């Protein structure tokens, strides 16, 4: 088991998805059960499904200095950075620590592949890229990291993690290690993934996409709804006094593991997910019984929900609340980790456990932990699960500052 870690202060956090721009809007959507899924009008050929599309990206333009990075993913990244005063806080952080001492660790599954798809639709008669698409800074997996480093003027360690749907959960783990070892004084973490033909037709080819709004943990669920999101957070070491402002949430643990089972199906007994959970609890120095809320991976695919429901049922008391919020946002893939971390922090701050949207009848595999309805409760410690293709698992543990 890993050793307990010192908590990190999360001094800023923001997210944007189909359910809302910024944390306030997302909190309101959760509380009023106003989901963001709409009929698919996005793919270049018809596909009968619902999607979590962020409105307004087509009209958004990047600042001139960043215009050469233009892509849907970078427009969403920019929209995300400009919510909740995050950009100003990031600039202040850079001024305080120096550009080289702030690490930038971002996650994405598809980066700007949507722009590469467009470039392929516009190839010339010789099969060459147009001059407007001859932009290596866009057509690569690290495009997101390059774009955000430019946008924030950062010069420290900068890497883009791409482990499919666990990508922007694992950024918290990488940042914690850099801070613990003294290689950075603060870290900006986050993730962005946008809708594109690759994921719509790709998940469709695997027969994982529902033709209705996704219903996580429903006995009659038919698969996932795809979505898009951006989210960012600032991580800093605790001050010497050990005290932070009362409403500052903390990262208290994380666990990362592999299923060693299959590229696109979870381990049938959830052993990889359980290992990530155990490591997160150990680093946090807590027991499962102390967990008040869990934001589940809960994609509404048959296999994921069955395996995850069984894991929660066997490891947690009935008093732990658990839910999937993908009915609001869709599955935002490489951005799911940061989006659902942000939702978990909203839950801790407001004393409000979101339920599971669109779900009518819970699968019999679910224990009493998994809730359909929202509820109010004194939440002190919460987890967020993210699992990806390749059998890549990450579990994050958060706490309110006044309870750690």
């Amino acid at each position, binding site marked *: 088991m*890993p050793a307990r870690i010192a908590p990190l202060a999360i001094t800023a956090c923001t997210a944007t998805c189909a359910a809302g721009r910024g944390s306030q809007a997302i909190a309101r959507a959760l509380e009023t059960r106003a989901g963001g899924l709409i009929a698919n009008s996005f793919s*270049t050929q018809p596909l009968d499904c619902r999607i979590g599309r962020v409105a307004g990206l087509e009209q958004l333009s990047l600042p001139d200095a960043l215009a050469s990075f233009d892509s849907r993913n970078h427009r969403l990244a920019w929209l995300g950075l400009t919510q909740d005063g995050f950009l100003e806080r990031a600039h202040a952080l850079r001024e305080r620590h120096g*550009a*080289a001492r702030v690490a930038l660790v971002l996650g994405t*599954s598809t980066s700007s*592949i949507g722009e*590469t*798809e467009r470039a*392929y639709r516009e*190839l010339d008669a010789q*099969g060459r*890229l147009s001059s407007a698409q*001859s932009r290596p800074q866009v*057509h*690569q*997996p*690290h495009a997101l*990291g*390059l774009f955000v*480093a*430019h946008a924030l*003027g950062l*010069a420290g*360690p*900068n*890497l*883009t*993690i*791409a*482990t*499919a749907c666990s990508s922007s959960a*694992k950024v918290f783990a*990488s940042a914690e*290690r*850099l801070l*613990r*070892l*003294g*290689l*950075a004084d603060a870290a900006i973490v986050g993730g962005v993934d946008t809708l594109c*033909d*690759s994921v719509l*037709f*790709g*998940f*469709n*080819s*695997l027969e994982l996409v529902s033709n209705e709004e996704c219903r996580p943990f429903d006995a009659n669920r038919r698969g996932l709804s795809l979505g898009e999101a951006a989210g960012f957070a600032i991580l800093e070491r605790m001050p010497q006094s050990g005290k932070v402002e009362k409403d500052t949430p903390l990262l208290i643990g994380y666990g*990362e*593991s*592999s*299923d*060693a089972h299959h*590229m*696109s199906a979870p381990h049938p007994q959830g052993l*990889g997910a359980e290992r990530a959970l155990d490591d997160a609890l150990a680093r946090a120095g807590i027991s499962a019984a102390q967990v008040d809320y869990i934001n589940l991976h809960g994609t509404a695919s048959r296999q994921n929900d069955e395996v995850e429901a069984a894991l929660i049922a066997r490891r947690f008391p009935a008093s732990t609340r658990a839910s999937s919020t993908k009915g609001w946002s869709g599955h935002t893939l490489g951005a799911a980790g940061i989006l659902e971390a942000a939702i978990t922090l909203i839950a801790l701050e407001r004393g409000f456990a979101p339920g599971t949207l669109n779900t009518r009848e819970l699968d019999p595999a679910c224990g009493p932990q998994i809730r359909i309805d929202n509820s109010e409760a004194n939440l002190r410690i919460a987890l967020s699960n993210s699992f990806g*293709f*390749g*059998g*890549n698992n990450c579990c994050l543990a958060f706490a309110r500052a006044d309870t750690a």
Partner: protein
Amino acid sequence: MSAALELAIEGIGVCASGMPDWAAARELLRSGSAHTAQPFERPAPASLTPNERRRAPDSVLLALAAAEQACAMAGRAPRDLQNVFASAYGDLAINDYLCAVLAHTPLELSPTKFHNSVHNAPAGYWTIASACMASSTALSAGSATFAAGLLEAATIAASEAKPVLYVAFDIAATGPLAALIDCDAPFAVAFVLAPATAQQIARLRLDLQAHAAAELAPLPPSLHALQARNPAAASLPLLVALAQGETKGFDFALHADKDLPASALHLEISF
């Protein structure tokens, strides 16, 4: 300006044109003779069955071939090792297939090609083949991918006090993007990094510098062409020092973008 990490290199693996393994690479890098490109055959990593090898993407074969060498040299069981797989571009052949199919017949997309398109496909195949349930990461950082991945692997080894497998690799670019990307020769390098142990091949000391040295890691002119052909070949100065058994220190830029002020990963290698 920051704490330095002290680690041992326990194992090395290389898979590239004219350098099918570390023994061949060491021979060439010791001699100082010019690298000549040779036809590159698909590697045949032993951890995959013949059937799996036939179906696996080139990126998976390349990465696993180097990974296996490093683990064998370290005498470490792959299933026990946390691992980091770094690639600047992922599998560009699958990327080309995806974008070409999506442009014309998106409903005909192959489900296997789709799940093989994730950046962590080599990491996924590696953990499945070696029954490894430890943490596994896949990342990119443009032309700074080798240094960024090495930093990530080193921080895991140092913070967990456990050995880590690190693999950096890229296959040759194919399709229309090849015109944009400086990557036309496959190259993979792997290390097993661990807290200092008895069986170490070399000691590695890493720290960060706010400003990269004007001259980054120097390399004999005979290797410049090879280094320019693949982001993972940024590892060559380190491999030359290991081949020659020479104590050395050098900087790697941590940023891919020349427009930004760059901090550097400073490495010192000793024996």
